[in-house]
């Protein structure tokens, strides 16, 4: 562009740095405190990000997901390893201990003029071409076949209203904003209804040495409010939680009133995620209310009652409700609920059979 508008450049340079955070073990509290910095914008999608922040130790099983997320950040992109171990092959990665403040390194990393990081994955299709025919439809008929190595979605019975729709399977997680760190779910979706849910990897678990108190419960409330797109209320929750950590008196009543006024409770369907938790019936509204409460946590000493299974709670919900339900449990609660499950053996399933035979046919 020939026209030079210096004021526009200065304005653009003052925009907050958009970071996408891959949260590993024991790092979510640090990331949430970092997100309160006005110079940094914690974005929900890598497509909107400039910098990838890898916070906390990333498990080896999550490494492929981390590579995929990194490559989805548009160029020019940078990565800051905050309390995590960089991949072996990287040349001069920027590493920072988790105890250090990350905001200034992120800002300097963002403004530094350098080449964009290359992709961490090879530039090949994630699944190789295995279809037949010019459009990759693969099979002989309209359906079937394995275009790009993936079987076509096939119809299956619907748990909600019996409409037979195409069922697609997605593996979601572990690096999503407001998502429990490390949780990987395999969902069979028909439209937006979750037909089956399976925990592939359990969440990283609660931060060691962190007791479930007012502060950690407020942080859980902040995650749920952020998911409801009530970002400023979520930040307020985090500020109150941080003040509580510094042993300052907290104004929970005012916060509770603000959440009520925001309509958050109206946005949460009554009875969603209903289950018996710690010996008492609860749903998403009552859990959010309890998080914003001042009372001592009733869920001390592990009750003998078995915890409900997360996958069972999600089945039959729409996707947005399912995410709300996942966010309505604290990391401590989720730890016992989301236990990895084995992939079902689908011997008697027509869908899989046809997909499998199509795949064999393609070979």
């Amino acid at each position, binding site marked *: 562009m020939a026209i030079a508008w210096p004021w526009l450049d200065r304005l653009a340079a003052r925009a907050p740095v958009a970071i996408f955070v*891959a949260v590993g073990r024991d790092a979510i509290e640090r990331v949430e405190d970092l997100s309160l910095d006005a110079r940094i914008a914690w974005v929900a*999608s*890598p*497509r909107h990000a400039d910098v990838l922040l890898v916070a906390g130790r990333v498990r080896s099983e*999550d490494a*492929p*997901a*981390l*590579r*995929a*997320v990194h*490559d*989805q950040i*548009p160029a020019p992109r940078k990565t800051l390893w905050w309390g995590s171990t960089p991949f072996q092959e990287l040349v001069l990665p920027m590493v920072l201990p988790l105890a250090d403040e990350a905001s200034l390194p992120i800002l300097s990393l963002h403004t530094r003029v350098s080449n964009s990081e290359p*992709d*961490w*994955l*090879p*530039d*090949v*299709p*994630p699944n190789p071409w295995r279809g037949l025919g010019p459009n990759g439809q693969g099979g002989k008929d309209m359906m079937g076949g*394995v*275009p*790009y190595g*993936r*079987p*076509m*979605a096939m119809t299956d019975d619907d748990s909600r*209203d019996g*409409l037979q*729709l*195409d*069922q*697609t*399977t*997605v*593996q*979601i*997680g*572990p*690096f*999503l904003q407001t*998502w429990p760190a490390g949780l*990987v779910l*395999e969902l069979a979706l028909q*439209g937006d209804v979750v037909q089956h849910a399976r925990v592939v990897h359990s969440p990283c678990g609660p931060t060691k040495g962190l007791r479930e108190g007012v502060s950690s419960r407020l942080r859980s409330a902040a995650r749920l409010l952020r998911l409801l797109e009530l970002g400023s209320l979520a930040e307020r929750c985090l500020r109150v939680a941080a003040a509580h950590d510094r042993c300052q008196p907290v104004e929970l009543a005012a916060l509770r009133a603000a959440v009520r006024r925001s309509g958050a409770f109206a946005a949460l369907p009554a009875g969603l995620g209903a289950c018996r938790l710690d010996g008492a019936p609860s749903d998403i509204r009552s859990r959010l209310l309890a998080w914003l409460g001042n009372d001592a946590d009733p869920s001390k000493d592990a009750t003998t009652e078995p915890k409900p299974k997360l996958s069972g709670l999600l089945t039959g919900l729409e996707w947005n409700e399912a995410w709300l339900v996942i966010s309505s449990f604290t990391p401590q609660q989720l730890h016992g609920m989301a236990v990895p499950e084995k992939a079902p053996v689908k011997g008697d399933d027509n869908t899989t059979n046809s*997909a499998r035979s199509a795949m064999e046919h393609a070979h």
Partner: protein
Amino acid sequence: MVVSNPQATPFLGGGSMPTHAWQRFHARYYPMALLFIAFEMEMMFMYPWAVVFVQEGIKALAEMGMFLAILSVGIVYAWREGVFRWQ
């Protein structure tokens, strides 16, 4: 702009899709939309009728009443068939 293969994949928090994304959706609003269009056309007939009504008076009103009564049978039928149920 050149988009590499890893960049072109959908964002699922690092996850992937074991099955293909080409799939059919059910347009649940379809019967409702059809009914809406039918009765929107009926409204179109009522604009010229309003001009005739000024000249003809009560006779035109009775005729339009008959027309609407016949059409409402269609609504009642569609209602019975569950068109207004979101399924």
